[in-house]
């Protein structure tokens, strides 16, 4: 009996522990908020802003490329932002589990703005809405890429922009 109680106690500790681990908070932005906060910063940073979603296979393949760039160049003013276009109803069921299972360390925000016909051209005129897509900018440089990056390719864009 004592053993059972001990076991139950242990289980409840495990359960409580798994609930008390700090939850991932995903900042949710509409396009105006996203634009103001992330799209046109004029500071010394190099911004790598990637549009992705957990359901997009090429996006998922590409995430480690951005993670590596951030890991290597975070001390050189490189800011990586992963802009998720997942449905807001899937934050808990898909987005957070993905971030946790893949140990994503770059900053992730959710862009929650359904009228994409309005804002897609504001990100870039040439964007057709297919993801992955990436904006890279710093003072004096701004490019939009409709592609899945390989690491070397991305690094060869970032390197010349470093101070």
């Amino acid at each position, binding site marked *: 009996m004592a053993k059972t109680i001990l076991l139950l106690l242990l289980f409840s500790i495990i359960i409580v522990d798994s609930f008390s681990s700090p939850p991932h908070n995903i900042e949710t932005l509409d396009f105006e908020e996203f634009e103001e906060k992330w799209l046109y910063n004029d500071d010394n940073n190099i911004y790598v802003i990637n549009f992705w*979603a957990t*359901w*997009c*296979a*090429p996006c998922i393949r590409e995430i480690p490329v951005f993670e590596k760039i951030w890991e290597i160049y975070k001390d050189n003013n490189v800011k990586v932002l992963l802009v998720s*276009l997942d*449905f807001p*109803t899937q934050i808990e069921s898909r987005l957070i589990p993905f971030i946790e299972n893949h140990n994503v360390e770059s900053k992730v925000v959710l862009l929650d703005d*359904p*009228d*994409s*016909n*309005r804002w*897609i*051209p504001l990100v870039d005129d040439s*964007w*057709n*809405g*297919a*993801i*992955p897509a990436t904006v890279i900018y710093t003072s004096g440089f701004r490019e939009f890429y409709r592609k899945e990056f390989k690491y070397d390719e991305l690094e060869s864009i970032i390197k010349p922009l470093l101070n």
Partner: protein
Amino acid sequence: MKKIILIVSLVLAYSSNAVSQGYEVGDKATDFRLLNVDGNYLSMADFPDAKGFIVIFSCNHCPFVVAYEDRMIDLHNKYEPKGFPLIAINPNDTIVEPRDSYTKMIKRAEEKGFPFPYVIDADQEIYPQYGATRTPHVYLLERRDGDLYVAYIGAIDDNARDASKVKEKYLENAINALLAGEKPDPDFTTAIGCTIKTKE
């Protein structure tokens, strides 16, 4: 050396052609002959009475397509009697994306009871001609003097994930404009969607 430069520039010219932008509104659209989920090949020529077609590059796996499936069914049921049947075309390479295989297309069409044809661009020759880049990607075609012309390109409406919050039904408005003998406005919209899958 000159020969090499010539070859290189020829290759460059060819490859830049290969990534051409596809159709713009007003362009003449090609017919196709693609395998439907009912086991038969299907062409737009098989619909001599149609005034036009709602061609939607679509697939099984993309959440944005799934969000629109019921609306696609409604669109077909509403506009096929008015002369604009819907044809869904799966442009994805089924080795790269096995969830979009022909067998799974049949299954999906049965599950949802698609009233419209669902064909596969198995050789991936049709979607590049249209210039489709994502699923779902709509090309509204109008038949004039036996030829098909692109009248609208883009999204079905302005809210993929919630049909009840749609403010602008771009595609319906475009079809209604054609039925009224007018030009669609807007005739081009864009939306988030899944990249069309090709072998590298």
